[in-house]
């Protein structure tokens, strides 16, 4: 019994000492709450050098955390706990966040660099007049492929994915809307459809794709494509750019039937304790040279037209990643479907995944 008490006391003392040390480490330099900016972003989605530069310029200490799905981010912010000052959700989640009153309106007088953004990307239906959000990166959903391995296919049409010659070769992303979306696009329906007969048709179409599917995975696709383990994969344009950068043999195509046009946007959630600092950060990221540096590092397409002028011409004129205006007409932005239809899409996706044998 005595030994037990001694052990308990020892553990408590050690724990307190550790707690104290972590506190000391966290303060590092005696910063108070007003000097800390907590950023919640996608993984690999910012040039770390820019964060350092921002810290040096403003004296604000940045805490950087990452998420890998919009939904996980939403859940975490909703739960509270961490005082996130900046988050980078996709457009359909912004609608949802607005509905649930989770965002702080932006003060445009503190964001003079907003003028750098191409007007094509401003004042979009999910956030009129950009009251709550500023576009960060944009892109498309398409097919990355290895021309040496797939022969004659150029993926000008989604239907190419269904070709029997590609049996057990196609990699899909583990995300319901993208996968259901390729069937909807192929049939010529809207990516935001809530018409049950259209969805049933899409499900039947997807079932025909099952024999061609090799795996349904997440970010691991990048490495598999780079190492030539896979020859065809459904992916986002930015990820495709990363893959092509590492493996020159690869190519990317957005089929002509249409595809998803997506935006990731900077917002200030209501959890923010440093709204002033958050505005400073947004304005910093909107500067032409930081946006150019960031786009260069991340590889996604920037909406910042002042930055485009500073970037490599070969990149900016690459129609695969900066599609011309007429192709943009075929692209469609996701709308929030509401919980009922998110459920319908996901159940459909689950049934599809279970039919892959």
């Amino acid at each position: 019994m005595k030994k037990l008490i001694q052990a308990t006391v020892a553990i408590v003392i050690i724990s307190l000492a550790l707690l104290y040390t972590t506190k000391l480490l966290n303060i590092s330099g005696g910063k108070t709450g007003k000097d800390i900016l907590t950023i919640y972003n996608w993984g690999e989605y910012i040039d770390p050098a820019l964060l350092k530069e921002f810290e040096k310029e403003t004296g604000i200490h940045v805490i950087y955390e990452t998420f890998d799905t919009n939904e996980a981010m939403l859940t975490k912010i909703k739960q509270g706990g961490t005082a996130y000052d900046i988050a980078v959700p996709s457009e359909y989640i912004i609608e949802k966040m607005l509905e649930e009153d989770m965002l702080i309106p932006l003060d445009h007088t503190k964001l003079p660099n907003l003028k750098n953004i191409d007007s094509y990307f401003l004042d979009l239906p999910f956030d009129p007049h950009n009251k709550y959000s500023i576009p960060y990166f944009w892109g498309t959903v398409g097919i990355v492929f290895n021309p040496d391995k797939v022969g004659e296919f150029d993926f000008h049409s989604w239907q190419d994915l269904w070709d029997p010659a590609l049996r057990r070769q196609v990699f899909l992303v583990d995300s319901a809307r993208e996968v259901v979306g390729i069937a909807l696009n192929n049939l010529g329906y809207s990516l935001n459809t809530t018409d049950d007969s259209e969805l049933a048709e899409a499900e039947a179409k997807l079932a025909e794709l099952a024999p061609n599917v090799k795996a349904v995975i997440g970010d691991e696709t990048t490495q598999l494509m780079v190492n030539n383990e896979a020859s065809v994969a459904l992916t986002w344009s930015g990820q495709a750019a990363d893959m092509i950068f590492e493996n020159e043999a690869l190519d990317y195509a957005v089929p002509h039937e249409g595809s998803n046009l997506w935006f990731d946007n900077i917002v200030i959630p209501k959890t923010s304790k440093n709204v002033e600092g958050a505005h400073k950060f947004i304005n910093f990221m909107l500067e032409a040279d930081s946006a150019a540096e960031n786009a260069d590092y991340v590889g996604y397409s920037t909406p910042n037209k002042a930055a485009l002028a500073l970037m490599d011409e070969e990149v900016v004129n690459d129609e695969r990643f900066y599609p011309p205006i007429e192709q943009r007409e075929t692209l469609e932005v996701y709308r929030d479907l509401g919980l009922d239809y998110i459920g319908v899409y996901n159940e459909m996706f689950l049934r599809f995944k279970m039919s892959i044998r």
Partner: protein
Amino acid sequence: MNKANKTALIPYSLWILLFVIAPIALVGYYSLLDLEGNFSLINYQTFFSSIYLKMTLSSFWYAFLVTLFTLVVSYPTAYLLTKMRHKQLWLLLIIIPSWINLLLKTYAFIGTFGLSGPINAVIKLFGLPEQQILFTDISFVFVAVYIFIPFMILPIFNSLDKLNPTLIDAARDLGASPITTFRRVILPLTMDGVKSGIQVVFIPALSLFMITRLIAGNRVITLGTAIEQQFLVTQNWGMGSTIAVFLIIFMVIIMLITGQKSKGGRVR
């Protein structure tokens, strides 16, 4: 039970109440809510639709395969271990890999099983065409077995180690063949170890979710995958909880089947 003993139980009972009973009650409560937060049995109705029943069956099938192969590998290994000179050291060597992060080990398997990985290099050495190993259910079962082996070996090793060697000698002296000795003496006396091994493997194997995606490329879908998706993607906490309720029920059933009997004729 005297008073001092009762006070000693307070911290533990509080712990159980807060972190075991309360969460289970919450899961039960959420499972009765529909998307709008009204009470309904809709989630249970959905569960009994063909898709979730099919998923339950396939989860059970894969968990069964994983447990079976783990047992087949572990029992002889544990038996040999008890015969070793430095058995504690060998046991440690088997347990050490389980200290390495699961995700890290899984990623290592992606490289190993890949088309340009070492296994395919050997296959090509024999002039055979390269094989697709990754993203098959065989590779899924293999990796799961690899992960669970230490958890199965430990309890079996302990029960074999406690086995009184004179009993085996006695069986031999009385004319039992090695096979009969194993069947009638060793196996019955180590059955408890086998049962707890099955418990610690089968139950987690039912709800494996990460390696279903990384190794099997979602060609294998378990109940765990469905729970993760309901909570994080679909945001349907009710349905996620309902699947969890069934998982808890299945676990209780398995515990009852494999649990140690306290009554009966066994001499302790």
